[in-house]
């Protein structure tokens, strides 16, 4: 399996042990989900931490406000129990400008040293996509891992709501004229199909629409994923290609599929990452490699119980780590 060896990933403990002698700087999200502190706890317990910046993203007033406050108070207590990070909490809001988001990444990169973990578990895409782009491009960062902590379960209720019109993610917009021909739209199937119909409307007749389905996603997620696929089928004309199954946490495999779907970037594609975060991570890395536009319909409100608990494997943290850059070399390239 050359692909896997080229792009190592696995349980966080396994990956970290394969990269010995390093102390890690962490850029993570301090949010209402329990898993937002999973990796920070892991680094503290194993005495692996260098510098740490946790970003607190203020939530918009919503029906979840009271619950959000309670969950944030719990996380504050947990944070005190684990130990406070080296650097103060970085406050921002969900609709921070691109400049503000880039500043967080760039300021972190200036002081983080050579070995960096970006914990994408609780970051919205509009943050972790540009973070990855900036950190990958920064020559001071020699080793870059992305980590993803698995929850015990997801909210049965809505995960996110009241989305904005579709738009591109920060730093993943159109790059100029003449506008590149769009041959394909590649959609990562997820739980929520907010605004998907509107997003696909201009493309559905003239370009190929391909879907990547996390499979097996485990119970009960497969219901929601298949519902997502069904919704796409009702939007699109007959003859849409069957979804391509990819393992939900296998970022490297998703990246490989994206390469194959686009004939190693020859086919110009627009990306729509609605799937689980490790899949979206692959979309992000592929977009960076190909300068593709990434469209998304950003929710304005997230359920504070988006996920519940932190998964464990025995006594180990149930988190995956993905090597994105090792010895200054990006592992996710087209060739």
């Amino acid at each position, binding site marked *: 399996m050359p692909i896997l060896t080229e792009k190592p990933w696995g349980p966080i403990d396994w990956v970290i042990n394969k990269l010995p002698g390093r102390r890690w700087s962490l850029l993570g999200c301090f949010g209402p989900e329990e898993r937002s502190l999973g990796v920070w706890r892991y680094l503290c317990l194993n005495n692996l931490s260098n510098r740490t910046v946790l970003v607190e993203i203020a939530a918009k007033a919503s029906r979840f406000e009271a619950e959000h406050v309670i969950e944030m108070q719990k996380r504050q207590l947990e944070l005190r129990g684990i130990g406070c990070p080296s650097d103060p909490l970085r406050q921002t809001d969900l609709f921070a400008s691109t400049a503000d988001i880039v500043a967080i990444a760039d300021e972190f990169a200036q002081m983080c040293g050579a070995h960096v973990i970006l914990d994408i578990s609780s970051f919205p895409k509009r943050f972790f996509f540009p973070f990855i782009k900036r950190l990958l491009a920064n020559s001071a960062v020699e080793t870059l891992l992305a980590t993803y902590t698995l929850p015990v379960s997801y909210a049965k209720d809505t995960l996110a709501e009241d989305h904005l*019109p579709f738009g591109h993610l920060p730093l993943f917009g159109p790059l100029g*004229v003449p506008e590149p021909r769009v041959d394909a739209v590649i959609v990562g199937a997820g739980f929520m199909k907010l605004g998907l119909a509107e997003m696909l409307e201009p493309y559905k007749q003239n370009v190929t629409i391909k879907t990547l389905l996390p499979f097996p996603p485990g119970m009960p997620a497969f219901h929601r994923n298949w519902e997502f696929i069904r919704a796409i089928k009702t939007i699109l004309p007959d003859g849409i290609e069957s979804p391509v199954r990819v393992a939900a946490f296998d970022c490297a495999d998703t990246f490989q599929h994206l390469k194959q779907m686009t004939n190693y970037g020859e086919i110009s594609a627009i990306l729509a990452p609605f799937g689980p975060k490790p899949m979206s991570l692959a979309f992000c890395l592929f977009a960076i490699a190909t300068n593709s536009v990434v469209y998304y319909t950003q929710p304005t*409100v997230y359920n504070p119980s988006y996920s519940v608990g932190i998964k464990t494997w025995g006594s180990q943290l149930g988190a995956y780590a993905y090597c994105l850059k090792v010895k200054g070399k990006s592992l996710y390239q087209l060739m």
Partner: protein
Amino acid sequence: MDLRTNPFNELYVTETVGASAFVQIFSPFILKNASALFLPGNVVVKGTQGCGKSMLLSLLKPEVRIAYAEAQRPFPVQGKSARFIGAGINLTRSGAIDFGQRSMGGADATEALPIYFGDFLNYWIIYDIFKTIRTLSSHAAGQVATELGISCDADMLNAFCAGIKNNRCWFGFLDDSASFSDLEGRVSDRINAYLNYLNFNSDALPESIRKSKTTVGEPIAQVAEHLRTSGILAEDVHLIVRIDQYEELLRLEGKRKEYGALFREIVNKALSLRNPHVSYRIGTRGYAWGNSPRVYGTVGSLERDRNFKLLDLDEILRRRENRKSWIFPDFAEDVFKKRLRYANYNDVPTSDALSKVFGAGLSPEQRATSYCKSSSQHAIKFESTWPREWCDYLLRLAETDPLSARLGEAWARQKGKQIIVDAPPLGDPPWTTRRYWRKERVEAALMQIAGRCAQRMIWAGAEDVVELSGGNILVFVSICQHIWSVWLRAVRSQNVAERDIPEIEHSVQAVGIQEASTHWYNKLSEETGGTTRQRFTSIVGTELERKMYNDDALSYPGRNGFSLSLSDFERDTEVKEFLNESVDYGALVDAEHTTKEGNRQPRRKWYLNSILSPYFKLPHIRTKEPAYLALREVREWLNLAQSKPASVRQEQVHEIAIQGTLFPGDEIS
């Protein structure tokens, strides 16, 4: 072809259906009401999603015009109106909406931001004008270019370049362009420099751009004029510029909210120029276009009919009290026939195709009988005080005419009419002879009979299909799609090889309409900001249904809608904006109405969009007075929909600001 294909599978008719399909299924019916769109002068096209805006605006795109030429079909717009070329910008896809995501740098970064936005618009649109000219010249064997008198040989293009490059509007940016190709390259370089900067691929905006910011609209006007003088465009060919996604400027979040207003003012400024060679077209949802759109850098606003014409498609297609003046049924009929012909059905009638397929529907009496089946007694409820004779009368009547029996029950419950219980009528009962009393209550009575008999209400027949569409062609096609889909399921085991158009049973239609209604309800949450709107709709629909169902006396048969006084409506800006958006996104429909109250205060009323009526088991026909509500009640619904914590549950009523005095000590008495 396989007749099991649903002719209505493709809901939207914009250029996205594929140019050749567009040519075949586009209905030009609406064009006679939209002639302003193709004539010189700025036009704002307003309407809810699916009203046909995009379909109309697609005709301005060169690709669609070419598709007509390639299909050897006449372009739907003819004569002087067809003498135009179209270009434009999509504010989202072009990246224009990203201005404000990064400081533009320099001392004037903040103040100049709207100017940079306007400059980007100028160059993008100019780039698109050049693209349009090339597209029209190089496709369909140059037929469209010939029709429009477009000539673009190299000499002419270079003459155009020489004529325009030193114009003052560019502030020297194009001075070095030696040829048209150079000039085009400079234009695209500038766009690319902007996008690279906004995507953080470059550290600074080139100085050459900083020093040559253009005024929105002016370079476009210059290009239009020089295209004529250099002979590339014929004298009488007009340039029409589309600005797509204008309303998204309203939805910018975070710090950029304020920029959205400025960017709209910049676009408005382009419209304020009233250049004879260029006309702008803006498609927008109804309330996204304000009453007096401000113009950037001035204290003035755009004036309707002076700076722009307003084409309100909802208004054109909306049903008035007099059905005869409603043009939508003919539009729907035309769309329906075109779809059937495109799907290769035989002998599609030239008129009344809808009636042939869907029939006339059920009469109210038939519906009532259908709800009751063999248990007609369930249609009526008795008061314990009513004499036996009266109850027997109603029971007998219910056996043959349950609707009449239900109306009789209501009659006996109304003030001043109870006397009838002591003397049941021998001949025609008064509720059948009092025409308007009956007419106003039939739908509410049917809804209650269905509920009492635990049956789903039935919607079927051509008239119901058209009425439930509420003047929206997308909803109409969607209803047809769902009915067809149910029909295809129903005949799956039958041989449907023949190509004759079907006559679809009412029961099949009823299921299809229910499915369509559920689809539109579910779709509410999928629209921008739609989750709260869907909850609000659900609260309103359930509340209106409950009250209407429990109105045994049928005293308030019009309460499938609600009304607020305009003064109340204006007081709570959040409620106002929410209701307006709900109308824009097709959850509600609204109209002003005359009050029944002595204070004569003007009021506005809202109903659920007709297509949601089956989902909420509410009659779609609007008669009599809606429920008169206080602002507090609507605010309470909104709070429930938002599930806001108590601290923000009060009305957000604007305080009347007390202005301070100019000089300390001067107190206002």
